[in-house]
Every structure is written in C-alpha cells, then in structure tokens.
C-alpha cells in the first residue's frame, strides 16, 4: 500500500496505470498515438465512411473503413491486458470492475453486452458526453484509492458515424475550414475523431502481484459542475478551475507542480474562452505549457477524455509535449503558454488533463510519471 499525501481526509493508496490500449486515427497502440500527436500533423480528411453532402463540414479524423465499435473495444481491452487473468481467481481480483464510456443511445446496451460476452468483463456504462470517460477514471481512482477495488478497467469508444456527425453539423459545432484551432483567433469549432481506448488502473499490490510495470500514476482527480447553463460553460471557468484545485488537493500538490496541461481545447469560441479563464485562475502568474491534442486526433466525444489521458501518458513517457496544432493568430482572451510549431521537452512534474461537457460538467485528472 502506497499512501498518497493528502492535506485532509483519510489516507489513500496510489492509483497506477497498468496498461493502455488504443485505436485512433493514427492507428493501433499507444506508440502510434504518441507518435501522431508528437508529429503534430492533424489526421483530418474528408469522411469516406458515409456521405456528407448537405452538411456544412466534411472532415473528421477516422481510421480506415467502417470498423465495429465492439470489435475495437475488445481489441483495446486485450491490448491493455484488461480481461481477467485466470490465475487471479481470489477476491478482489476476480471481480474486476469495468466502466465503459459510450454515447448514451440505444446502441450502448448491445455494444456493452457484446463486449461483456467476449471479454468476461461486465460493463457499467457512463454516458456523460465529453466527460463520460474522465468521470469513470475519477470514480475508478476513488475506488482504488479507498481500497474498495484492487483493479478497475476503464474503456471508452466512439467511432465517427452519420447521426452524431449530422447533429454536430446542424448545431454548427464543426469547423467548416477542416481544421481544429484551439485557442486561436479564427477558430471555427471542433472536428470529430475515432477512438477506442482502454486503461487498466490498479493498486500497487495488484500490479506487483501480476508482475506488471506502471506506465504512470493518477495522482489527482476531481469532478465539478458549473450550475450555469444547459450547454454553455461558465464564462469565468469557475467550475473547471475548481476541478483543477480539487485534483491538486487530492495530489497534495500546488499549481506550480504542474508541468503540462492537456487542454480540453475543442476549438469552440466560448468553450476555449472559458477554459482559458479557468487556467488563468489556477495559474495567475502564467500557465505551464498547454496544448490540445484534439487539434490532431479530433474530438472523440464520450471517448475523448480517455484518448487524451492516453496521449498525456504517452507524452510524459516520451519526454516531449505535443503541439497545439492548427493555431494561427493569438486570441488576447486566451493568454496561454501554448506549445506551438514543435514539441517541447517535458519538464519534470505533473501533467494535467482537463475536460468539459454540456451540462456544465468538468473533470480534471493529474498524471504523474510512473
């Protein structure tokens, strides 16, 4: 048991990342995702999976063909080492908790059921839009930190498909110029992207017992609400800032300990302004390096936060901070230390990944090197 330092409350155990599986527009595996985000080349291309005639936008970051979501999820779960080890038949290992973030429509149930049949894992589905997966990670971390579980698997999946493309296009949320430009003047919005991701979170004893090696540690987490609007973020970013402070409190760390921010940065006008305000609140003297990797891999909706957690872990392990691609012109209301042009060397410290969603939902996750 490795207690983490907390300013208040009961002692907690370390939450380790024991495995990651990824499918994204950059291909299969964490290495492909890491290489893609560090190359800084957006993966957006005209959508071939379905027709986009009649829509305002026509691009997304997709993999080849029309893969089935359940197949992708089973693949990333295997890659992450998530299915139960048959040698671990004693509680609590026998009852690996499995949280699965999916779009909350009728398709979620059949996908979850098929994944359960093929993996032996029994999903509890999170449907809370762009914070679905990070909320699941926070819940998983809390379960492990308090000793309720030794091992929790979190997975998430979204593959670009006609219905969500159509409704985001109708809501004028998609960038017509084919690029995502977080925190830049002239940004037009988001573009969608494929992702299936699985992350295994474990206590130190569970990881040691199976002879695994930690990829990273989840040092802090928090979930908050804005209490402001159906879909707009609080313009001062107060809820998001509170989430970051909450994650820092759990980590027993100060803002100065954060060496990189993987921003939500969807490229939307209001969302980016609110996020910039939140980061200025947390870092009044200036932010650490910031980038939104949505600028290259797109917005994977319910899977976005887990894809960005994977990208953050990959960046920390590579020792390099990915660029905020698509950026053109300074927005005076987004005064952030953006990583532009080329990756920067990663400084020692924690990495913060933040997400925000409709309903004023916010999450913050702090990632420490293993």
């Amino acid at each position, binding site marked *: 048991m490795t207690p983490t330092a907390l300013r208040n409350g009961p002692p907690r155990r370390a939450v380790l990342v024991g495995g990651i599986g990824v499918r994204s527009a950059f291909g299969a595996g964490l290495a492909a995702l890491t290489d893609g985000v560090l190359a800084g080349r957006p993966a957006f291309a005209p959508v071939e999976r379905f027709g986009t005639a009649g829509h305002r936008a026509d691009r997304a970051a997709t993999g080849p063909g029309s893969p089935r979501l359940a197949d992708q999820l089973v693949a990333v779960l295997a890659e992450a080492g998530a299915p139960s080890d048959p040698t671990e038949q004693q509680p609590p290992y026998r009852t690996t908790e499995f949280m699965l973030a999916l779009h909350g429509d009728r398709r979620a149930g059949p996908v979850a059921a098929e994944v359960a049949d093929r993996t032996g894992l029994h999903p509890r589905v999170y449907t809370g839009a762009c914070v679905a997966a990070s909320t699941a990670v926070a819940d998983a971390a809390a379960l492990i930190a308090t000793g309720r579980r030794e091992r929790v698997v979190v997975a998430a999946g979204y593959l670009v498909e006609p219905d969500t493309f159509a409704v985001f296009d109708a809501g004028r949320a998609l960038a017509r110029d084919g690029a995502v430009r977080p925190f830049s003047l002239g940004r037009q919005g988001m573009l969608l992207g494929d992702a299936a991701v699985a992350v295994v979170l474990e206590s130190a004893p569970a990881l040691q017992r199976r002879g695994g090696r930690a990829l990273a540690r989840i040092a802090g987490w928090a979930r908050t609400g804005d209490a402001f609007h159906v879909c707009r973020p609080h313009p001062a970013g107060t809820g998001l800032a509170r989430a970051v402070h909450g994650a820092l409190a759990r980590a027993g760390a100060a803002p100065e300990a954060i060496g990189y921010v993987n921003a939500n940065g969807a490229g939307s006008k209001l969302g980016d302004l609110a996020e910039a305000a939140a980061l200025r609140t947390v870092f009044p003297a200036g932010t650490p390096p910031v980038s939104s990797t949505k600028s290259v891999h797109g917005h994977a909706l319910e899977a976005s936060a887990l894809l960005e957690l994977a990208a953050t872990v990959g960046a920390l392990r590579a020792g390099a901070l990915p660029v905020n691609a698509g950026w053109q012109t300074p927005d005076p209301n987004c005064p*952030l230390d953006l990583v532009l042009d080329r990756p920067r060397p990663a400084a020692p410290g924690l990495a913060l990944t933040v997400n925000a969603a*409709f309903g004023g939902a916010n999450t913050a996750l702090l990632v420490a090197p293993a």
Partner: protein
Amino acid sequence: MTAPTSVPALVTDPAPLAPPVPDVGPVAVPRLLAGPLRVLARARWPERPGDELPAIAGFVESAFSPLVAETAERCLHARYGPPPAAGAPRTALLLASPSGDTGTADALARATAHGQRVAPLLFFQSNPNAVLGHVAARWQLDGPVLALGPGFDDERDLHERAALLIEDGDAEQVLVVTAVQGPPDHATAVLLAP
C-alpha cells in the same frame, strides 16, 4: 498548420492580461461514511393518472428531458421549496437511464435516414448532460454532473455511486434520477445524504 515562430511570444506571458482571481469555492475533502445514505426527499413521474410533463424551453421532439427535469424538480421542491435550492450543500446530479433519450435519437435517425435537415436544437439535447445542466442552473447546484447507462441496474448500484461521490469529497449530497422513456415514460428521483 501552425503559426510562424515569431508570433508565439505574444501569448506566452499571460500575467499582464490576467483578471482578478475569482473565488472558485471550496474544493473536495474526502471523508468516511458511517453508514448508508439517508433519503432526504423523493419523487416520481407519473404520480397519478393523467400526470403531465411541463415543456422546457429549448428542448424539442422528445419527452426525455422534460421527464428528467420534472422528476428532479418535484424532488428538489419537496426539500427546498421553489428554486434555487438556497442553503443546499454541494449537490451532485446523477442521472441513470438504460436506453437514454430514445425520442431524440429516433428524431435524429429519421432525419439522417431521409436526408432531411436536422433541427439544430437536437444538438444541444443529444446527450443526457444537457437536461442536468438545466436542473443545475435552475436550482444552483454545482456538484458533479454524471450520466449513467446500462449496468447500473438497481437502486443499490446507484446508492453506491452516490456514496462514492460523497466519500471522495466532490459532493455532500446527491440527487439521483432514474428515467426510462417508454411507452410508458417513468422516472424516480431521490435526494441522498449521509
């Protein structure tokens, strides 16, 4: 595409532009619960034959969001009277629905299948967080906002998730709403606290 290297200097020093630091309120403090959560208030829809759902401005085509909002409204009203929930401790909103907003999903699927224009308002209600944002803003509840689907099959599962949020420190109480779009539509709400 990225900008020329000479430009970034303009955005690397935020200090001169930084506004006064707003108060973001107290942050999470983990705690240990001594026992099961108490039910402070409860509500359901329908309550009686002929029970009606008030419409919510901006939500169209589907009864799902009005169902969630009205059931939450009745529960919160039973505890706090009219909105906002003055004096309420930090309250999480947790919505559990096994099949989600089928009315919105069906409207969207019909439009795309027939190549019709998609109503822009469907964008805002295309995920279950939106109606929770309506409830949170109306009642001024700034705890976590969670939406859950299949796998949270009974009341005990939801009480466990509510207890986790409170023990973990992000909320002091939790409004749990379960909603199923039928026919017949039905929903329940409970306000849970230590």
